[in-house]
Structure formats: C-alpha cells, structure tokens
C-alpha cells in the first residue's frame, strides 16, 4: 500500500463517518457539525485528485457559507424542538432503497472496464483551468452568475415576506 492510498483511506473514512453522522445523528446540530466534517473530508479527496482549486472553493463555499446558512435555518425553524421531525416510519424502506442502490452501483463500478488510464492522475494546471473557464466556457459561466443573482434576489424576496405582515 502506497502512502497515497493510506492517506486516501483515512480521508475516505472521515468522509463516510461524517456522512453517517449527518443521516443518523439524533441531534440536528450534531448533524450539521458532521456535515462540516464530511465536506472538509471531501475537500481532502479533491486535493488527492489534484484539483486544488476545487478544494479551496469547497472549503470556502461549503465549509463556510452553506453550513452557516443551514445552521441559521435550523435556528429559525426550531427543528430542535421537534424530535418527531428526525425520522419517519419509512426508515426501513429508505435503508432498503439506499442499500440496493449502493450494491448495484458498486457492482457496476467494479465490473466496468474504464477506457483509458485508470491508475494515474494527470495534473491539470490552474492556468489551463482558468483559461478554459473564461474562454471556452465563458457563456455558461455568465449564465451561472445570472442564476446566482436571480436566486439571491428570489431568496431575499421569499424570506422577507409581504409588506405589513
């Protein structure tokens, strides 16, 4: 086992523990903290995939902004005071569906013969990524910024409510 694989196993174990905590924790705030753990571990996976830029973006956007938003929403909707909101009677069916999906997907991953190099990572430099993003993908990039703007305005209007409320 190479040291890279060793690091990968540690990071993957942290990610899976975090994800398990998110879906199984009985306390919703613990759930959110486990989500932070899982997201940071996924940032580690991105680094192992030599996608450092995405790892940084991940830590900034997910580790920072998204988790704060979720914690605020928890505070404002008082999920903590409603223990019955944690899990429904559909739990066994959910476990069955997720387990079946897991089994089929892992079988598919193992059975597929991927074309090309499956053992070696090709490092993609920042410069090329930036050039592709702002030249080849410039229009999708602008549309994404428009979507963000519209979502921002929509979120403000939705959360503020009507006048005189």
């Amino acid at each position, binding site marked *: 086992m190479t040291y890279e694989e060793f690091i990968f196993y540690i990071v993957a174990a942290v990610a899976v523990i975090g994800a398990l905590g998110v879906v199984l924790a009985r306390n919703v705030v613990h759930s959110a903290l486990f989500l932070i753990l899982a997201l940071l571990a996924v940032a580690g996976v991105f680094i192992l995939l030599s996608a450092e830029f995405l790892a940084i973006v991940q830590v900034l956007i997910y580790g920072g902004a998204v988790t704060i938003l979720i914690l605020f929403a928890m505070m404002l909707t008082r999920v903590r005071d409603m223990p019955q909101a944690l899990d429904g009677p559909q739990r066994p069916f959910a476990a069955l569906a997720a387990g079946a999906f897991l089994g089929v997907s892992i079988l598919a991953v193992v059975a597929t013969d991927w074309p090309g190099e499956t053992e070696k990572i090709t490092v*993609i430099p920042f410069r*090329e*990524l930036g050039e592709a993003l702002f030249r080849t993908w410039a229009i999708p990039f602008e549309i994404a910024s428009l979507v963000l703007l519209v*979502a921002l305005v929509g979120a403000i209007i939705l959360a503020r409510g009507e006048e005189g409320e």
Partner: protein
Amino acid sequence: MIPINHFLVLSTILFSLGMYGVLARRSAVLIIMSIELMLQAVSINFIAFAVYLSPGEFRGLIFAIFVITIAAAEVGLALAIILRIFRNKATANVDEVDIMRW
C-alpha cells in the same frame, strides 16, 4: 497511485447515504443537508473522471465548478422557501406540508 475505482466507490457510498437521508428524514433542513451530500458525491465522480479518463479536456472540473455554484444558489433558495413554509404553517416537517397532495 490510487486506482479510479477507489474514488468511484467512495462517491457511491456518499451518494447512498445522502439518498437514505433524503428518504428517511422528515425535517426539510435535514433533507437539504442530505442533498448536499449527494451533490458532493457527484462532484467527486466528475473530478475523478476528468483527471483520470479525459485529462486533455477536463470538462469534469468545469462541471464540478458549476455543480458547486448551482448548489449554492439552490441552498439559498431552498432555505428561503423553508423559512416561508415555517412562517405560514409553523412547521418545517415535510409530512405536514401536503397542500398539493391529491
């Protein structure tokens, strides 16, 4: 080096856990968190395919950037809608929000 299968299996596990969360949880905020997990799994898949299988084009990386962007927009909007529902119905439990159920 790490074989690509490792990353794919990890992303499958994360996706299944997120799927379990979406199906089993009843609070809308917890469902959003599970959806975030699933999106993370998708990003891992995109990046793994990009750096292993088609290194010359790296479309996967661009797609992962868009996934993160859209996810940020989605979380903002979804939480605004949840706050709105909470204000109207005093609950964020998805089982009780059944106005549109036939």
